């Protein structure tokens, strides 16, 4: 099911004397989610991504704007008529019901002609349980399950009513690191198998990049950029998106364009032809550094971290916005740790320039 959001805005009224200001949680959000894709809503906490999910779900109604599933306008429909399945951050499994009863619950809510026969319900539940691989857990209660298992039960409960859209609110945040890797694969697999349009919310860019077809980066209620993960990573529209994506994060320098060259500190590090002279932010991805003895960028060497597959060089530079910068280079390179300085050449595609005032991307 294709989802279209049109100028979606949600404003929460101010409360009491302490917080008289209205809060705009989602601001003029427009986007189109193609049928059958897995979309990540990504952003720091408080950026409005959960509110967006609640708007999609129908738990909140928008102040203005429209939501369409396919051609159907569902803006004013209550949640149960939208055909959405929702997985909550804490899973919200009913603790007094068994796994089976939990999954059965949405089906038992139906009345009249929508109600399935007992056998149909049974087979639907078993089918869904097989899909998420929890058949052997059906008679347990939620508290007797691990976090990952609870998560799968929650997904099964959302899927059992065959929703048009599946929504997941921070699906991995309650799991430990190892389980998180495994579970995200599983979510991807289930989504692929069912082909159901899925939107999930996360603040973890790693999670978003690794499994989604597209990511939508949000900040303060505004959609910053939406696109395929690699596109957004390689070609961010502004400094916020560039900083938010990538681990380790992008290194930001205060730089300057003069005479068609990019200067960091007093060193001309890269040609920047066709650009007017101006102050810029230069973002350099960690993998954009090349260790080179006569490289143009000179940094003070702090320490070297051996990761096995590659080496992190932690260095500092007076123009660097952060405390230190981190460069990732191949494990075969030799870093002279005794030397006080380290020199880098830069890969042109990995250096991104942003306007100093607006933080918008400057292409060159």
């Amino acid at each position, binding site marked *: 099911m294709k989802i279209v959001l049109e100028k979606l805005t949600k404003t929460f009224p101010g409360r009491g004397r302490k917080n008289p200001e209205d809060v705009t949680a989602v601001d003029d959000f427009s986007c189109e989610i193609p049928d059958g894709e897995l979309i990540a809503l990504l952003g720091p906490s408080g950026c409005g991504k959960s509110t967006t999910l609640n708007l999609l*779900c*129908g*738990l909140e109604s928008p102040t203005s704007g429209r939501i369409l599933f396919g051609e159907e306008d569902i803006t004013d429909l*209550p*949640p*149960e*008529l939208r055909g*959405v*399945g*929702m997985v*909550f*951050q*804490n899973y*919200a499994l*009913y*603790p*007094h019901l068994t796994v089976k009863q939990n999954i059965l*619950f*949405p089906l038992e*809510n*139906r*009345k009249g002609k929508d109600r399935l026969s007992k056998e149909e319900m049974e087979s639907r539940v078993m089918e869904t349980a097989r899909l998420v691989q929890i058949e052997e857990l059906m008679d347990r*209660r939620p*508290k007797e399950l691990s976090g990952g298992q609870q998560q799968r039960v929650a997904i099964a*409960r959302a899927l059992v*009513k065959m929703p048009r859209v599946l929504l997941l609110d921070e699906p991995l945040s309650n799991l430990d690191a190892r389980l998180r890797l495994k579970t995200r694969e599983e979510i991807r697999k289930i989504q692929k198998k069912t082909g159901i349009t899925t939107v999930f919310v996360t603040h973890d860019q790693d999670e978003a990049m690794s499994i989604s077809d597209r990511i939508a980066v949000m900040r303060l209620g505004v959609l910053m950029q939406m696109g395929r993960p690699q596109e957004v990573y390689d070609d961010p529209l502004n400094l916020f998106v560039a900083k938010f994506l990538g681990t380790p994060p992008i290194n930001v320098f205060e730089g300057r364009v003069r005479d068609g060259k990019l200067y960091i500190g007093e060193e001309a590090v890269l040609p920047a032809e066709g650009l007017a002279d101006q102050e810029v932010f230069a973002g350099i991805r960690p993998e954009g550094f090349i260790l080179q003895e006569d490289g143009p960028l000179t940094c003070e060497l702090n320490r070297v971290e051996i990761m096995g597959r590659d080496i992190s060089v932690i260095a500092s530079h007076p123009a660097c916005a952060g405390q230190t910068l981190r460069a990732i280079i191949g494990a075969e390179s030799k870093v002279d740790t005794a030397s006080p300085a380290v020199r880098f050449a830069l890969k042109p595609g990995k250096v991104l320039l942003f306007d100093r005032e607006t933080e918008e991307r400057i292409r060159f």
Partner: protein
Amino acid sequence: MNTNKKKAWLYLLPAALFLVCFLVYPLIDVFVYSVEEGYNFASQTYFGTGFYNFSYVLHDPYFLQAVKNTFILVIITVPLSTGLALLISVGLSSIRPLRDLFQTIYFLPYVTNTLAVGLVFMILFQKTEYTDGLVNLMLGWFGAGPVDFIDGPYWAKMFVLCFYTIWIVMPFKILVLTSALASVNQDYYKAARVDGTPKLRIFTKITLPMISPMIFYLVITGFIGAFKAYSDAVALFGTDLNAAGMNTIVGYVYDMLYGDSGGYPSYASAAAVLLFAIVLTITCINLLVSRKKVEY
């Protein structure tokens, strides 16, 4: 016993001493009294030991009346007050405006003196030579004759006693249940909404099971409290409860000790032991049932 354990016992000693002095010793003493026949306070003597005291108490029509009264009181007030409290708390938690005001109003009986409330109830219900009382006035509007609720027929007196008891115990229950309702995670309701769960089903399948531990707590303490009822009856019907036919088991125990017919600690102890046995049995049944029903 190693030093650490000795230390632990030493630390427990002060509290344990008090408990033994003021709880364990009196408890045992009651049992001892209850089997000493013809015990006399003044001379501290008794004829012999045996179960005559129990036999006497169990054949005493006043005691049987008290048991009957107590059981009626328990059976009527505990379910009714808990049910009403649940209804009111659900109502309270689903309204937003004026909730605090209502909560305060519902809580007021809890902080009001029992005897003062009894007085007010008497004024409301009592029929005297000068006035029929407010309740009778209202009954009159519906064509029902005046009933003397305080000195009249048994059912009328029992009605007032139950009404009064429910009114007194409800605030605490409402307090407990509203906080129980508030502590149910809102996500369950959201999940239920997304799944299109009908309101009644949300209540029976989600809300009730979620707060069931609190409901059972209230039922158990309610049973115990109602079995120990005494001051309520005194507040309404005065101290001569036997004459009014409205005595309770605790009232009977008191009368046997200090009432007009008093001075019989052995009978009082026997009645107290019987009450203890009844409460113990009921509480055990309650716990067994709740273990089956309260599932998480």
